[in-house]
Structure formats: structure tokens, C-alpha cells
């Protein structure tokens, strides 16, 4: 765990150093200490421009990347437990595609009813709406089983992707495709201080609730029948956790677009490192997810600078092959063979 925190801090520091203007590690660290202490510690011996870049641009960006990575990591881990499928991720339940569709509707029809945050609100509403429909489909005609949930989510995602494509292709605005692409592949370019409070609060609250329920989440891994026999009201618990992860995922998509593979891959790495017990695995996946997205964002904005890649491309290029390697190395750990 200490190693993971160190990794996170290193990622964060490098994230502050690198960009269109590179700032030495010592300076970046001093500026952060200066800023954190409200000017009490470390005397300014740097250019003011550096301080502005760090404080106004890079700190919020690193925080946003960290919060999104942590949220996706814990959401992915909890979703894998509630649908009892290690191949599930936040995107599997249709939340991500619903959020993207919501955002695209706003961009396509130029809706600005709710001011500067219209796009974010639409994404959040889209995610929750998609989820509610998945929920309703999975419940129709009896119990909500993991398989029904996953199948409903996959079907929902496919329909929503089609709607998104349709909206883009029929748009009179030739720029829309590029803007939508950036949304569906994610990025932290919009990071600014005023965007942070909601995702930060959602992560803290969500993670706190999950940690309180960690023991119960463990029971879900043993299957519904075992979980009932061990004292869990399975259906009610699954419903609560489902809504919680959906809200958390919806908020992350609203602020950063759809970033794939974080919620799918990180839980696996964490289970290899610290085991499956959610009491240890949830904090670990938050830290590791945060480190991963900060690093991915770093690559996304520096590899072909000054052009910025959507961060979802980086996470998919790293996460996809890693997943395949994991699959080949140890299919058992993914539960795809017995």
C-alpha cells in the first residue's frame, strides 16, 4: 500500500512538471508546498508564470485525472462484484454510453438551457437514464440476475452507440464529429478548479459507502445462494450498490468523457497485488486507478505535443494489450475457464 501511494505521488509530481512548458521537479514541488501551506512554507524563487501554470492549470488537471481514475477503479471493482463477472466494467451497464449520448444530444441540438454545465448535466442524466432502463429490463419477469444485467447492459450500449452515431452523421455541423469523438474517447483538457467539487465529493462519499459495505461486497463474490446463507439481503444490496456505482460513473463521464479500461483492468491488478478482500482492495484500486489515469493523461498530452490525444486512446492502447496478456497468462484468474 505504501508503494502504491508513492507511485501516486510520483505520477502526480511528473504530471505537474510536464506540459507545453516544462518545469523542474524541485520547482514544481516547492510551488505545491508553497500553495498548500498558503504561502507559509518555501519562499518563492521561481517565475510567476510557472506558479500560475502549476496552480491554475496543472493542479486541477492532475486532481481531475486522479479523481476520475479512482472513481472508475472503485466503480469497476464494485460492478464486477455485483454482477459477479470479472469481465464487467463501468461501461458494461450502459452508463458510459448513456452519458455520451446525453452529451451528444446537447451538442447536436445546441442546448444551453442549464448554462455552462449543461453538457455535464446532460451526460449525468443520460448515464442514469440508460442505467434505469437496463435495470428495468433486467428485472422484468422475475429476479435480477448478474447475467440478465450484463446482457441488458450490452444491448443498451449497442443501441446508444447507434443513436450517438446517427446524431453525428445527420448533423449539419461538420465540426460535431470531432467534438463528439473527444467526448467518447475522454480527456481532462476541460479541467479547472470550479469543475472539481462535485466529482471530488462524489468520490469521497461513494468510496466511504463502499468501504462501510466492504464485508458485504465480499459475500457477493461467493454467489447469491452463499451470500443469502451468510446473511445478506442480496437483491436490495445489489440494487443500492448498482445505483451508487452508476452515479459515480455518470459523474466521471460528465467531467471527462468516456475513458475505457480503467474500471476493467485496475481491479484485476489490485486483486493480484492485495487479494480479493474489498476492505483492502477498494483503497488500493482507488490509488492505482488514480496513478494510471494521471500517467495516461501525461502520455496523452506530451506524446505528440502540442496536439493533445484523447486520454481514452492511451488507456485503451495500454489496457487492451494488458488485458490480452492477462487473459493468455492466467485465464483462470479472469474466470473464463475453470
Amino acid at each position, binding site marked *: 500500500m505504501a508503494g502504491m501511494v508513492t507511485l501516486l505521488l510520483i505520477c502526480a509530481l511528473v504530471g505537474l512538471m510536464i506540459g507545453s512548458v516544462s518545469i523542474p521537479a524541485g520547482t514544481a514541488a516547492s510551488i505545491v508546498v508553497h500553495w498548500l501551506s498558503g504561502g507559509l512554507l518555501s519562499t518563492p524563487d521561481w517565475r510567476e508564470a510557472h506558479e500560475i501554470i502549476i496552480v491554475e492549470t496543472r493542479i486541477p488537471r492532475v486532481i481531475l485525472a486522479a479523481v476520475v481514475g479512482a472513481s472508475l477503479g472503485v466503480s469497476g471493482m464494485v460492478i464486477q*462484484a455485483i454482477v*459477479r*463477472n*470479472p469481465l464487467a466494467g463501468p461501461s458494461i451497464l450502459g452508463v458510459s454510453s448513456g452519458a455520451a449520448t446525453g452529451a451528444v444530444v446537447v451538442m447536436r441540438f445546441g442546448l444551453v438551457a442549464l448554462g455552462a454545465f449543461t453538457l455535464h448535466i446532460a451526460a449525468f442524466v443520460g448515464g442514469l437514464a440508460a442505467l434505469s432502463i437496463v435495470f428495468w429490463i433486467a428485472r422484468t419477469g422475475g429476479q435480477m440476475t448478474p447475467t440478465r444485467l450484463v446482457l441488458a447492459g450490452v444491448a443498451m450500449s449497442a443501441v446508444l452507440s447507434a443513436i450517438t452515431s446517427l446524431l453525428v452523421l445527420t448533423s449539419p455541423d461538420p465540426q460535431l464529429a470531432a467534438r463528439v469523438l473527444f467526448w467518447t474517447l475522454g480527456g481532462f483538457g476541460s479541467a479547472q478548479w470550479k469543475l472539481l467539487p462535485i466529482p471530488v465529493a462524489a468520490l469521497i462519499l461513494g468510496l466511504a459507502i463502499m*468501504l*462501510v*459495505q466492504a*464485508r*458485504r461486497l*465480499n*459475500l457477493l*463474490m*461467493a*454467489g447469491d*445462494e*452463499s451470500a*443469502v*446463507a*451468510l*446473511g*445478506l*439481503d442480496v437483491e436490495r444490496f445489489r440494487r443500492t450498490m448498482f445505483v451508487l456505482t452508476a452515479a459515480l460513473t455518470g459523474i466521471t463521464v460528465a467531467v471527462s468523457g468516456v475513458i475505457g479500461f480503467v474500471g476493467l483492468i485496475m481491479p484485476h491488478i489490485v*486483486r493480484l497485488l492485495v*487479494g*480479493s*478482500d474489498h476492505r483492502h482492495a477498494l483503497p488500493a484500486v482507488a490509488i492505482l486507478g488514480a496513478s494510471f489515469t494521471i500517467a495516461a493523461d501525461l502520455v496523452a498530452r506530451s506524446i505528440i505535443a502540442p496536439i493533445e490525444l484523447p486520454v481514452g486512446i492511451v488507456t485503451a492502447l495500454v489496457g487492451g494489450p494488458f488485458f490480452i496478456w492477462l487473459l493468455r497468462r492466467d485465464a*483462470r*484468474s479472469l*474466470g473464463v475457464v*475453470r
Partner: protein
Amino acid sequence: MTTPPAGLEITGVTVRAKGQPLVEDVTLEVRPGMFLGLLGPNGAGKSTLLRTVYRMTKPDAGVVRLNGEDVWQRSATWVAQHVGAVLQDMPTEFPLTVRDVVAMGRSAHKALLEPDTKHDAALIDASITLQRLENFQHRAFRTLSGGERQRVLLARALVQQPQILVLDEPTNHLDIRYQLSLLSFLREVGVTVIAALHDLNLAAMFCDQLCLMNNGRVVALGEPEDVLTPALLWDVYGVDVTIQNHPHSGKVLVLPGLT
């Protein structure tokens, strides 16, 4: 185990699935400390009946009472504090270790944020030792054989500190040595036991009472020599048997096909 054995009363229990009765109007009582064997062909309704006891399947009619309390009026947690269910198997999508699985049995006794105590660890250790799983405890549950898994699931039920153990065909994957050691363990365990069993002779040897089921109904209930009769076994299984007495124990011995 230090818990007092519980009494179980099943009264007029009926379970239907899509209109078809799986269990129909079953009434039986298991007195505290008794070992009841549930017999019957595949599909007789044994597993379904047991599910109503550990609160997995809600009866469409009838009541299941534990120590006089309706289990469906109490919470899942309360039931798990009193009933230890040993299931036939457990899904293995996640890389849980044997110790992880056994430790799950403590959940019902823990408040939400309560950490594991020395007491929990001691119970888990004792249960692991009792089932001779010491050398397996850090191995992945899914790499174990069927018989080893069965012992892990029994160990998990024991750390629940139950007053009644409910077992669904616990001897299924076991070789004869472990079948005998499991059944003698259940006899000695000191809590009430209700177990679905397939082997008629082992049931006769270890159970205090037997309940013979067919098509969801109770066909016979009582002492082994009253339940294991050629006429009843012909009715239920459609096989001819001869009944003798075991040369050493004097218990009922069922010999097939020798009329």
C-alpha cells in the same frame, strides 16, 4: 462449538415454481440436537425444502420456525447467525483463497465497520484445523477438488457458530473415508442437523430420524427401520430391496435387488 442446538419446525410448507409444486404441504419437526436425514430420488424437493430453512426460497404457503421464530419474519442476518448452510458448491469467478471463503462465515456476526478480532481469527483457525485444511488455507478455492471444497464450505458454516446445520448432499464429492468422517462429525457436533443424503445405508447408520420425500411430499417420517422398508422404497424409487440388520451395529441395512 458452544452454541445450544435449535429446534426446527416446518409446518405446511408449499413451494411452487411456475405453478408446479416443488414442495407440497410438508410438515416436519427436528428437535434440538437431532440429526435428520432427508431422503428421496432426484427432484423429490429435498434441496428446495432446505432452501426455505436458510431463507433462500420463500414458501408460497406454510411457516418455517426456528426456536419458535418464523425465519421469514426475521432478517437474513438473524437467520445466518443461527443457521449454517453447507451448499453443494460455490461459483468461482474470483480468486478467493480458502481462508477468504471460511472467513466469510463471520460476516453475520459483525457490525458494518467492525474489524476482525482475535476471536474471529481463532474461530477461523479452529474450523480450518477441524476440517484438516491447514495446508490449503492460502490456496485458491477454485483449484481444490470437489471433496476439498465441500470441507471448506463446511468450515465456513461452522464459523457462523450456528445452532442448526443445513446440508445439501454433503457427501456427494467425498470418498468413503471422508463420508464416514463427515457423518460421524455431524453426529458429534452437538447442534441440530438436517441433511439431504443419497446413501440409504449411511443415512440409517448415522441419522436419528429419516424423512423420505417423493414428488415434493413427505412419504414417511420416523426411525430408520420404519422408513427404510421394502414397500416404501419400492413406491418411491421403484427398486426391489431386501432389508437386513448390520452384523455389528444392528442398524438397518438396505440390499438392492435380492428379493
